[in-house]
């Protein structure tokens, strides 16, 4: 949870029950899509929805542990850091998120930035 952000930047993305646990949904915003992910342990994360590899929609991936796997070529992103899990590389933006009264609040300003993958990994070859 990040409290440095002003409340004006937080948006309500609906009830937390709208997302299966584990599961994910796409949240379209004016600044691009955000993947809102709920893990099996009940934690909620919000990350940029474009895979660092070739832009695959992470909101459509399989959620396991505190990770999500891109549906296109299988890159795995660590939800807390936004970083791709080795042997892949790159990162997606991580957005602050909190659950308030059963509703999901997402901060639109990311707390960490995206980075492309270096193309040398297994998923790049699968593309």
């Amino acid at each position: 949870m990040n409290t440095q952000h002003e409340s004006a930047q937080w948006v309500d993305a609906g009830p937390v029950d709208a997302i299966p646990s584990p599961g994910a949904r796409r949240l379209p915003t004016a600044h691009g899509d955000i993947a809102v992910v709920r893990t099996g342990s009940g934690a909620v994360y919000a990350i940029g929805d474009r895979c660092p590899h070739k832009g695959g929609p992470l909101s459509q991936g399989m959620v396991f542990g505190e990770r999500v796997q891109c549906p296109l070529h299988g890159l795995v992103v660590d939800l807390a850091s936004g970083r791709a899990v080795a042997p892949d590389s790159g990162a997606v933006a991580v957005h602050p998120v909190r659950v308030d009264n059963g509703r999901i609040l997402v901060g639109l300003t990311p707390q960490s930035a995206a980075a492309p993958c270096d193309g040398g990994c297994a998923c790049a070859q699968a593309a």
Partner: protein
Amino acid sequence: MKEKLILVGNGMAGVRVVEELLALAPDKYEIAVFGEEPHGNYNRILLSHVLSGEKRFADTVLNDRAWYTARGIRLETGCKVVAINRARRQVIAADGTIAGYDKLLLATGARPTMMPLPGGHLFGVMSFRNVAEVEAMLDLARPGRRAVVVGGGLLGLEAAWGLKQRGMNVTVVHLMDRLMERQLDAPAAALLRRSLEARGIAVELGAETQGFTGTQQVEAVRLRDGRTLPADLAVVAIGIRPNVELAQQSGIHCQRGIVVNHAMQTYDPRVYAVGECVEHAGNTYGLVAPLFRQAKVAANHLAGLGHARYEDQPLATKLKITGIDLYSAGNFTGGEGCEELVMEDPCRGVYKKLVIRDDRLVGALLYGDTTNETWYYDLMRDGSDVSELRPSLLHGHGHLGDAGHSGAVAVAGMPDDTEVCGCNGVTKGMIVKAITDKGLFTLEEVRAHTKASASCGSCTGKVEQILAFTLGGDYSPAPQEKPLCTCTEHTHAEVRAAIREQHLTTIPETMRFLDWKTPDGCPKCRPALNYYLISTWPGEAEDDPQSRTHNERVHANIQNDGTYSVVPRTWGGLTNAKELRVVADLAEKYNVPVKVTGGQRLAIPFIKKEDLPKVWATLNEHDMLSGFAYGKAVRSVKSCVGKGLCRFGTQDSLGLGIRIEKEFWGAWTPHKFKLGVSGCPRNCAEATIKDFGIVGVDSGWELHVGGTCGVRVRATDLLCKVATDDEAIEHAAAFLQLYREEGWYLERSSAWIERVGLPYVKKRVLDDAAARQTLAERFRYAQRFAQVDPWQARAGLGSSADRPDHEYASLEVVEAAA
């Protein structure tokens, strides 16, 4: 009084003679053994694994000191015999020991060939033959240091691999233009080179070593072309020479090796010789299998039985580098009067070559897939006529491979005289007899009693299977197969068995029962568990959408731009104006093209996720169901027009295709399952590359199984012929159900058949009509729950306002909230 037997050379061949002799005539001799090395007898072959760190020296010991003591054998270690006084029948050792004999056995082995090259004496230049040398190498092997191996034969490559495993930077320098030229032809050698390079081992071919540089310690290897390769360690493995020094000095006739007759007797009738030191009929030796056969013969004569004869058999070589499967036997280069059968699959890294002369198999070279080596070896050794087998020879038969579980069935059908352990010449019959007669229970016991798998170890899997087969339910082998994924220790087989036996019906329950290491698995195990649960407990286990791969979860194929393609069923590939109109209207509405698929269907691509339910609703209105083009499921039934239209048609392939598709659709399978029905052997529906293919003939249908033309191409195997449509369907259902119940997740039917063997499939689906009906019945029962159109269940679901929790809707920013 006992006669005196002296063995000179406490190595693999010599001690084997003693063992065989003790079994035949335990009390005939008072035995003394002289060995130059300071150890008991150890398995030299395994030095490669000691070097790589896969085994410790202790694991290689074959006969420790206690073994000799227990049998009253005098053992002199670190004791080199320097002379034989044949007139007095005495051996004289370097330390002055003198011992008398009635019979003498020479088994002095071979010595590495060393080149008389400048710098050959430098510290750090060594050969690879015994424990002392391995220890010296390990002293110098440090991660990041450089090793150069001179010689790209079996020994050199195993040295290179071992040093690489120890973290060294390794280069192999080889004089010839291909690796292991005595065992491999050019294509196989090229594949091997690629695999080695992929493992980080550099290979220099056509490179002649000129010498070693350095002051005291080796610093570099110099090549003829002027290059120098820096080296902290240089291993020379360019060949071996029979160790004949002692025999020669004692006046025993030697050429390249100590010359022996068919009884392993030298020119002095009191003196026998076995092992790498001998020359028999002009041949010398470098692998243990022939030496152990020599040992049997020598023991037979020493025991006074006197009837065994040594004769050469084809030699087989395997390379002991983890992950590289290579087998070479007999004459693989062909030549006058030889024909070659060759199969290459560069994608899988598989190459097979079989050499045939006069309808007999005389050579086999297998790279990447050595499953059928035993079978080939038997055919070769027995000189069997292979003309009948020829069409399928390259594919092998459902014979026993090395791979863990896969042979359980093949073991059952294996003839008793099939050689299982090539090193020790142990047949299946001998193993079974030892297990039953002596009441053996473990692999170690079988090893101890029969020697099977005691040498190079590559047949361990087979021996375990025979043990398991012979003991029935009493034996559980060491896990051979890999765990399903890193979340668990359990294999696919174990997971399936637990689900069945413990009646597990949910993923969390299964994970708990099997001590999963992760809280909710991973994308590898969850889809597998989900499949195993729903296929084992139809109507009971609930499908878990979150454990489905993306396409299966959303019932469409995601495309590279994040849109989806929609492929409805066109039963048997037949469509009509009404259906075409529906598809055309949709294409127009969404402004997308229509693609005719490889499976005789129409694909509507570029549909956005949120539009999928609407598209499906329209299709459903016109009775068009999901084609499951996204699933590990029954796909299309590709059909040709058949006798209703075609002038050659012998059967109504279209009719049968449609009927099968209507009965089979909706079934989930370990991997995709495709069918094809052709009306005559011209086979326009390409049925013989389908998982299940049906081909019409005058008298009915031929049923074919296990084809694919995906990543790898495999033509089907013929299952049987049937007369009627009903029979065809019953056989197809039984086959499909067997695959559904016993295939591993993501194992295509082709791979499954290769694992379990066609004879097994025939046994289950053909031999017993009642069993077939039961399988088909179980399939029909499962279909009651499976034939629910997933599109219909989701059609019409639109915006998040209708169904906020629905997969196809995005979340929305709720403006007025909070």
